């Protein structure tokens, strides 16, 4: 398979062109915005919980981004539906990266993980779930209000 076919494989383009979970969620239980300072991309994530207030019932996202970030966030919404907030807060990034299944350079890794980071931030703000270890000491930089 050529590098091109690896990177822009059919499933990535499919998720990019027909994103799952794209849109807004009125009365979201959890919500956050994330930015990729490299390119100025922005994503907003909205979460609704089931009646137990813990299980993720619905995830939506809006914003702009490249095919990798949009496809990754689209896949993310499918990956986390039905899981508990606690589970998703500690979801290893490799689980999403395996799903995406393409080789990513460090720069494109940031694109692919923007949605996941923003989702974890939303859960943290709504439920107090832990943020990823690598964010420790960054509370001032994250918009946690």
């Amino acid at each position: 398979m050529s590098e091109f076919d690896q990177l822009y494989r059919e499933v990535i383009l499919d998720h990019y062109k027909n994103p799952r979970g794209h849109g807004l969620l009125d009365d979201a239980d959890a919500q956050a915005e994330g930015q990729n300072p490299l390119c100025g991309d922005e994503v907003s994530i909205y979460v609704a919980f089931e009646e137990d207030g813990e299980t993720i019932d619905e995830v939506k996202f809006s914003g702009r981004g490249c095919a990798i970030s949009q496809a990754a966030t689209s896949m993310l919404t499918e990956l986390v539906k039905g899981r508990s907030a606690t589970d998703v807060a500690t979801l290893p990034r490799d689980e999403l990266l395996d799903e995406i299944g393409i080789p990513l350079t460090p720069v494109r890794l940031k694109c692919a993980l923007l949605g996941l980071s923003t989702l974890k931030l939303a859960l943290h703000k709504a439920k107090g779930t832990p943020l990823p270890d690598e964010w420790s000491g960054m509370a001032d930089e994250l918009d946690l209000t």
Partner: protein
Amino acid sequence: MAVTTQAKLDARKLRSDFPIFEQEIHGKPLAYLDSAVSTHKPRQVLDKLRTFYETSYANVHRGVYTLSERSTAEYEGAREKIAAFINAPSPREIVFVRGATEGLNLVAYAWGLVNLGPGDLVVVTELEHHSNFVPWQYIAKRTGATLRMIALDDNGELDLSDLDAIAGAGNVKVVANNLVSNALGTINPVERLSAWAHEQGAIMVVDGAQAAPHRAIDVQALGCDFFAFSAHKMCGPTSVGALWGRRELLQSMEPFNLGGHMIRKVTLEETTWGDIPAKFEAGTQPIAEAVGFGAAVDYVTDVGADAIEQHEHELASYALGRMSEIPGITLYGPPAERRAGIVSFNLGDVHPHDVAQILDLEGVAIRAGHHCCQPLMAKLGVAATNRASFYLYTIPEEIDRLVDGLHKVRKVFA
């Protein structure tokens, strides 16, 4: 466009001076269309660095031994070349800095902190690189001064019709502008803004990073007070640049960094500063890089600033013509006759990252992002653009390959 009697440059021949082009990227020859962010280095500069380290290197100014004298002569010789390159009245008005960014910060801090206050206006443009925007925004906030914008018109050119209104709104103290926009390639009316700034009693601070490598520079003709540029954008090493400032301003300013070499006398009670430019060159300087900067000035001068400008103008015209035929493309910035060798564009709603990634697989390197111009991106209503930029080694075939690659992008995202 300056009329030139100089011989046209031979980009194909110059290319052989640059070892970077001897490789393939993803199995294809390298088409490097990102020279606005940084240029590649010719053997003449690389050889100079190596020879200098092997034969003449020592710390400058302080040693009394032969090597230190040799090193100092090379370092100060580079300063003289740089002064001549931009027609500065004296090499003493050339301060070595890490790059244009540090030069602009030096002015903002060392001049701005002392001279700005409430009621004062700092005038910048919507076209600035963050390097000539953020320092002023920050220093204005710290001093209580007000930041005012010169707006852009639909061509991506400065709209000067607001100048009178701006002058009426306060005490204009600083006008900051780039001579050439890194994001759109716009060539700005710096002479006119300098004259206006001086009518207001303000200083004119010019970001020359995108201009000095590509066209003849005469700081006296520009009429500005400060002019900053970087070596790495003109065939030289990274981590070195030059700030030119008017002698009386440099002399009256406080230092920016404090430490070794910049002092006259230090006692327990107080310290007095050295003469210019030493006052602004604290600590061991990027000595070899400065010498390499001098070699880069020699290289660019040999090729000829007017010839480079003419070559890039032809490339920009060619690129704008060919790219305008691509369905769905949006080209930003002024017409070819009023722009440097920079073409910013978007292809439909395909994200610039994806465009640049697919082009990379074709061996074509372009930039995708906000180009450190987020206020401009907001004005254009986009998060990012693609940008192709040219230099003395750029050949039309590279633009052809860019165009072919863009057709491929269209197919993928159709």
